[in-house]
């Protein structure tokens, strides 16, 4: 039953909404407005209304297009691995066993690592001369000479993505795990009686009932992939092969000081993310629980 007591829901939402109006929506409106101007922080007096000119210029800027292409690659790589890994982690931790709380704590750790420390951690793994990765792979005989992992024009993006995935996976896992807890055990019992093996139980019970969490996880994965900044900037600077769209945005707004242009780009990023998440939700609606 849905209670239709008129005011109560609004009262429940009000505190959050007021906060958001003040700290998000109002600044966002200003930003949208700014994105239609020609505001350059370096020359604050020279402001004109330029309509969609910034957007058009961005869409044709090869650097922006390159960064966008990179970000799409980050997105595909990280979302797919995060979701798969997240499900595996959540599934393996759903059942009680001794030391589970500790293992859960360990699993979540990467996400607690401040971004700067995170990139240092990985610097000492990817380091061409003193890095763990080269050393281990050589010892295992999988490579024959030291690689400059982050210097490879073709694969550096993958290595950066890996760092991001490492950090994001816990978040995805937690969301899935929380949802897994709500699936009643009796459904699995019924499915086992019905002859479903583990895989089929997963496919027909877990997955459909996990869907709300899956959509959230997909959305978060997408958002974070397109917002990817720290890992890229610290590990590979502004390198074209790994430059993400947020790094590009940062360069435009805070290095070139083309504020309006930067804001326009950040709004474009938002729109791309929203389009993708809208798509997930449509997919999810197909078979609502």
């Amino acid at each position, binding site marked *: 039953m849905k209670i239709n007591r008129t005011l109560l829901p609004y009262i429940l939402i009000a505190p*959050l909404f007021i906060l958001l109006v003040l700290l998000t929506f109002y600044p966002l409106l200003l930003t949208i407005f700014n994105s239609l101007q020609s505001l350059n922080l370096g020359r604050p007096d020279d402001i004109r209304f330029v309509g969609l000119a910034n957007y058009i210029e961005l869409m044709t800027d090869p650097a922006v297009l390159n960064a966008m292409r990179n970000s799409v690659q980050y997105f595909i790589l990280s979302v797919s691995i995060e979701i798969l890994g997240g499900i595996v982690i959540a599934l393996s931790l759903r059942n009680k066993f001794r030391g589970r709380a500790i293992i859960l704590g360990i699993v979540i750790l990467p996400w607690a690592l401040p971004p700067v420390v995170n990139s240092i951690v990985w610097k000492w793994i990817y380091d061409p001369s003193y890095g763990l990765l080269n050393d281990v792979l050589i010892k295992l005989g999988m490579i024959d000479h030291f690689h400059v992992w982050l210097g490879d024009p073709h694969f550096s993006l993958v290595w950066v993505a890996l760092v991001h995935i490492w950090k994001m996976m816990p978040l995805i896992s937690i969301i899935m795990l929380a949802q897994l807890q709500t699936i009643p055990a009796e459904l699995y019992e019924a499915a086992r009686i019905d002859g479903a093996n583990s895989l089929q139980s997963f496919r027909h019970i877990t997955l459909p009932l996990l869907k709300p969490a899956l959509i959230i996880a997909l959305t*978060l994965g997408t958002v974070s992939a397109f917002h990817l900044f720290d890992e890229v900037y610290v590990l590979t600077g502004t390198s074209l092969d790994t430059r993400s769209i947020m790094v590009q945005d940062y360069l435009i707004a805070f290095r070139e000081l083309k504020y309006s242009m930067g804001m326009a780009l950040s709004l474009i990023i938002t729109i791309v993310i929203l389009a993708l998440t809208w798509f997930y939700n449509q997919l999810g609606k197909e078979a609502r629980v």
Partner: protein
Amino acid sequence: MRKSIPLVAVVSLIVLWSLLPIYWSLRTSLLPKIELTTTPLKYIPMPLSLENYQNLLGIGTRGNDVWIPLKNSLINSIVTSTGTTLLVLLLSVLAGYAFSRFAFKGKNLLLGTILVTIALPAYSVMIPLYRIIIRLGLLDTWVGITLIFTSAFAPLGVWLMKVAFDTIPIELEEAAMVDGASPAKTLLTILPLVVPGMVAVATLTFLSAWSQFVIPLVFSPQNASPITVLITQFVGRTSIDYGLMSAAGIIAIIPPLLVVMFLSKYLVDGLMRGAIKN
């Protein structure tokens, strides 16, 4: 029981994947600086050097130089992360409940508007937000940073809580209502059932707040500056103090680790399901 062998393998792999980089960082923090660039690589920090930790904790050669800012920034981090977590929990439980259980005008629009903010990059509102925070007199204060974090993380919290409430059978609330529970009491009654959801929100929020960098950098540069910002200050002009930064990083993950270990008990002790037998 037969299933436990692959499970042990998978769990070990997960632990390795999560822990190895952190172990490597621990190693870095425990090696004397000069040993970082020697080959063959040292997998175990021998010779062991506690210098970085001594310096961080104010018992080393650098006196209290590092310890005092470290202590302050840890306090700042703990206060703002905890504050944010509590506030986000409160707001998202209320709003998530409203969105899950009530039918009201403008519901989808409101929910959509709130969720859209998840997609916004921090940079996109930073400069106007900066002016607002200054006008409110909240720059470089715990309150200011907590409010900003809350506005950033609450939308996700609302979504998670909505989904959590969605999975609770409505009958339980109905029973509570018939038993005479007011809306507030009804909410409180079923709250234990969404504990996994709340723990997820709390964990996500605490850790997100804990590892924030850009926002506190701009909005709480000093008095309320957190550990993440402090760590970047160990960067020198001609050399980066990797050991010190790693050590600070290790110290910085202890509070969240404790929080997570404490909360995870509630995350996995789902109430809706009995144990699944093997």
